[in-house]
């Protein structure tokens, strides 16, 4: 039974594409077959983050127009067996695809892959509706900022209205130091407002930017980094494993505040 998951956020720039690429890679590393769909027509980035740009020949639009077969358009990742990408067209815009067409693509891929992960564009217009049309589950990416959380809340409402009720929350770009100093919303604050189950917390890290520019998902990196571990953990939780959350606050604060946290104060 394959799972169709959409990664969405409402607000732009919170890390949807980074999350999609890393989750895809992490799941493939765990011997799952994964198809990533870039639903951001006109502003495609997923191929860049995966380092597959120069190997894109056909796009989803070509498949829908009947100019190539679906299998031809899929770009296989050389580093990971089982990871493929269905690229979006860069020369078109979001109106060139309809929700039913996206559904057809995702359902066709679902026959051959364990996971179909759809990278949703920002916003809540047609591009968003295309991306969520086929999804059975959703991962909401947000950062601990008021605007991002507000948009995430709106998107959760829209997903629920569409009948997508299996929703997991990823809080991205958490800065433990700022949380400690009360300058940033904590993960608990975000959770309290959104009221959906947490599936991962990813700390802010420069390595993410380096990896993005190199076109190499962090989880494939040679050195273990905290965000890479966080993404692997999310992938394991998706698989149903119970993995404890990373204690990002562990190295913060003095002995007193740590003790206070331990006792839930």
């Amino acid at each position, binding site marked *: 039974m394959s799972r169709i998951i959409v990664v969405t956020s409402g607000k732009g720039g919170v890390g949807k594409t980074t999350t999609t690429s890393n989750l895809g890679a992490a799941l493939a590393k765990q011997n799952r077959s994964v198809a990533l769909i870039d639903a951001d027509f006109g502003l495609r980035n997923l191929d860049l983050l995966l380092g597959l740009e120069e190997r894109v020949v056909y796009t989803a639009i070509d498949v829908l127009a009947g100019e190539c077969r679906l299998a031809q358009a899929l770009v296989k990742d050389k580093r990971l067996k089982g990871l493929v990408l269905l690229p979006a067209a860069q020369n078109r815009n979001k109106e060139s695809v309809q929700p039913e067409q996206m559904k057809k693509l995702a359902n066709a891929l679902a026959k051959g892959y364990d996971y179909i992960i759809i990278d949703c564009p920002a916003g809540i217009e047609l591009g968003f509706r295309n991306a969520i049309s086929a999804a059975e589950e959703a991962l909401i990416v947000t950062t601990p900022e008021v605007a991002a959380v507000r948009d995430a*809340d*709106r998107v959760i*409402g829209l997903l629920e209205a569409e009948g997508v009720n299996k929703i997991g929350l990823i809080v991205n770009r958490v800065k433990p130091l700022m949380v400690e100093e009360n300058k940033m919303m904590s993960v608990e604050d975000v959770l309290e*407002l959104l009221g959906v189950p947490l599936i991962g917390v990813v700390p802010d890290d420069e390595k993410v930017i380096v990896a993005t520019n190199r076109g190499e998902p962090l989880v494939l990196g040679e050195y273990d980094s905290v965000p890479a571990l966080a993404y692997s953990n999310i992938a394991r939780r998706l698989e149903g494993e119970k993995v404890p959350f990373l204690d990002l606050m562990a190295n913060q604060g003095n002995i007193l505040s740590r003790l206070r946290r331990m006792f839930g104060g």
Partner: protein
Amino acid sequence: MNFEPTISLDKIDDVPDSSPLVNRYSQICLKHDGDQLLLVLPTQAEINSDLPWSETWQELKHLLQTKEQSWQVGTKVCLIAKDRLLDARQLQTIAETLNEVKLSLETISTNRRQTAVAAATSGYSVQQTSLSEPLNPESSEIDSPSLVLAEPLYIQSTVRSGVEIRHPGTVVICGDLNPGGKAIAAGDIFVWGRLRGIAHAGAQGNRQCRIAALQMEFTQLRIADAVARPPKLRPRRLSPELAFVTIEGIRLVKTLDFAKTYIFSSSKEAWVDKNEAK
């Protein structure tokens, strides 16, 4: 539509929501009528503009999902379309949406000939009414902002950002009212959770209406024509609070203390302290 004629220099003033005294109850509503349910669509005039069909449909889906499912499986629904133009495809979408929550569309009441034809072709029973006469007592009640309020609306989910609940009666929200979300009621508003968005009670001008929440963290409270913003510094209170109109404006007290301390003075059109009223 009872908009007060206002003289305005600013275009923004024309936005219907900016006035605290909006009498716009242009939302789809679902009510019991004997052993059937009435699904009332707002009239063309009430929706104020050509609201796209997709929005109406979205609203219907949302309504069916958040409303307490207080009906038997297979309950018949009568769609009161009034002067809305609906084609066969739109009727089919409505029927399918109702089907998802185990309701079946049976009758369509309309005063548009085209809608009646479309409904009859699709095999629904049709009640065609003329424009002048009211469709039935219930729907005329909604049209006129009368003092009789509709039955309370009970919402069993969190009201999230971007969602606006409008109801010509009392609204009970069993969940949070999140920032960016809005509840507008002609009666009282009760939030069995955190109130973080905007709540407007007594939207038809009744200053006696109150707003209660387990935790008050609102963006804005409005009762009738009074508006209140949260103070800059507010102690985080753990007890449920209630907002009401006094002579000085909107006030918050502990819900527990309200009933024994305050009484509504109709001459002053505000709640006053019982001890001072003596």
